[in-house]
């Protein structure tokens, strides 16, 4: 176990505009971090910074001991898988091909799929409930199906840590819950995940740690129930979040 991802006093500016300011946080092995906050708060930029896709103007980022923005991309990809908020594929690949793209960092030469690659792709597609879509064209899927396919691509990468920007957007409630259960299982088995989400209820039920980002700063961090009930959350969303307990003991969160 140990610290896998670390941000120290990180500022990020995009187009001359400060998007993140003085972010200090860390992600440990086995941790499922959920990032919440209002639109435009800087959540996606925070995840992109962890993935090495946005460079800090100040401070340091370390993922598995390396600076992800300058490390060998192939080595980074074996440790970190990133799912962006928007995913557009320019050509009509079939689903199986899209998922197999996740094996890039583990292949050499022509990269024709080996038995190991195919097994990883099958496992990822089964986990994301898209195995029956394997031979369909990606551009002919519904939004929710496409979202599950690219989650399968990220899983197929076989990375130790998943960075997922709104993975449940467009998913029906059953599949959305299934995604969080899957992440929880993966983290319990020793992986780690950082998930941006607007589904506060799923974040409460499955997250181990919650980061509240507002105005480009990390304004609260801790157990999801504590963060959601905090004054900072009320101020960030201009809304009270009611955290309660169902008769079976399950926690839930709804806007009050």
């Amino acid at each position, binding site marked *: 176990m140990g610290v896998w991802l670390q941000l120290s006093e990180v500022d990020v500016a995009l187009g001359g505009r400060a998007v993140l300011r003085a972010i200090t946080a860390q992600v440990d092995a086995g941790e499922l971090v959920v990032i919440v906050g209002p639109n435009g708060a800087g959540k996606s930029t925070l995840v*992109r910074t962890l*993935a*090495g*896709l946005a460079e800090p103007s100040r401070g340091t980022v370390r993922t598995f001991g390396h600076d992800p923005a300058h490390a*060998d*991309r*192939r080595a*980074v*990809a*074996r440790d*970190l*898988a*990133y799912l*962006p908020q928007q*995913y*557009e*594929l*320019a*050509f*009509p*690949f*079939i689903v*199986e*091909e*899209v998922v*197999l*793209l*996740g094996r*890039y*960092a583990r*292949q050499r030469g*022509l*990269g*024709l*799929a080996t038995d190991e690659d195919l097994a990883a792709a099958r496992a990822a597609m089964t986990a994301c409930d898209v195995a029956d879509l394997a*031979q*369909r*064209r990606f*551009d*002919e899927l519904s939004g929710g199906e496409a979202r599950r396919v690219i989650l399968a691509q990220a899983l197929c*990468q076989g990375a130790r840590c998943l960075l997922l920007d709104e993975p449940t957007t467009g998913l029906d409630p059953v599949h959305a819950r299934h995604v969080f259960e899957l992440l929880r299982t993966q983290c319990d088995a020793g992986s780690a995940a950082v998930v941006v989400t607007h589904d506060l209820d799923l974040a409460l039920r499955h997250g181990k740690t919650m980061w509240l980002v507002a105005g480009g700063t990390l304004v609260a961090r801790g157990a999801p129930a504590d963060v959601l009930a905090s004054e900072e959350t009320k101020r960030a969303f201009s809304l009270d979040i009611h955290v309660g307990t169902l008769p079976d003991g399950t926690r839930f969160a709804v806007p009050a």
Partner: protein
Amino acid sequence: MSGFLTGSGTRLTGRRLAIVIAACVVACAALAVIAPLVGVATGRGGRALEFVSFDSPLVAVRWPRVLASLLVGGALSASGCALQGWLRNPLADPFTLGISSGSSLAAVLAIRIGLERVLGDWGIGLAALVGAVGTLLMVARLARIGRHLPPATVVLAGVTISMFCSAASVLIQYTSDFTDVSHMLAWMMGSLDSTRLVTVEYAAVPIGIALVLLVAYGRELNALAAGPDVAASLGVAVGRAQGAVFALASLLVGVAIALGGPIGFIGLIVPHTLRALIGPDHRALLPASIFGGAILLLVCDTLARTVIAPAHLPTGAVTAVLGGPFFVFILVRQKQRASLWGRA
């Protein structure tokens, strides 16, 4: 057969790749053997298509032109395929990026100042090559943002440079005498009329090397189809891959234009057609595009030198006349599947 060839519902396997390449090689080789045997004879019965035997002196005369067609067609088609993949843009080809216009401007300038009188036959080809590379550097300089070459700014810079170069070419023609203008127009239509074997031999080396290197970027182009962020997170060194693809594609276009003038449509229609036939995987699509482009240009050039014989048509005019309607046919067929590149 259709499921195998269309690529729909089929991922790329070693066997499928081998069959695609073998089919391309056989078709290309067969046409390359037949093409120099075909010509038009003018006799008492008027003009008629004539097949000569392998030992005919006409074969030796036509052979450089056949080789040039294969090289230029393969180079233009592969560069179009790579540029479409890199820029994620179905309209990307050597013309969109201004490379053709830049090399045309340099060639027109070379004719205007009489570079041929100084450097001989090489003058115009050399100028076209310098023009292509110069345009590439200018587009890259204009489009560059930090360490990146964003596709949208590359296309914008390419279109801007292309318009400027076309306007400058017109101005130069306007101030030139009649002989020079007809020479310029003939060159700008694209033709393999005066290809010599020694020129083809010199062009074959850079084109061959660049094609092999470009094919090696098939996996990177597949990943880049999902955008640079996803490609980087999958493990692709995006800046390096984009720079290499851009440089190799431009080199191919530069040498191809130096050899045959600005021959259009090959870089656009061949990759599109093959993508519909064998699927979008660049590991198969790039090599298939090389052979597909070579075959198409060889067919067009053979038509160019036979349909109105003894006169020759400009090869570029034949590719445009045949390519345009064929491209429309492909577009209509694709539209019936609801989308060409994504959701309609």
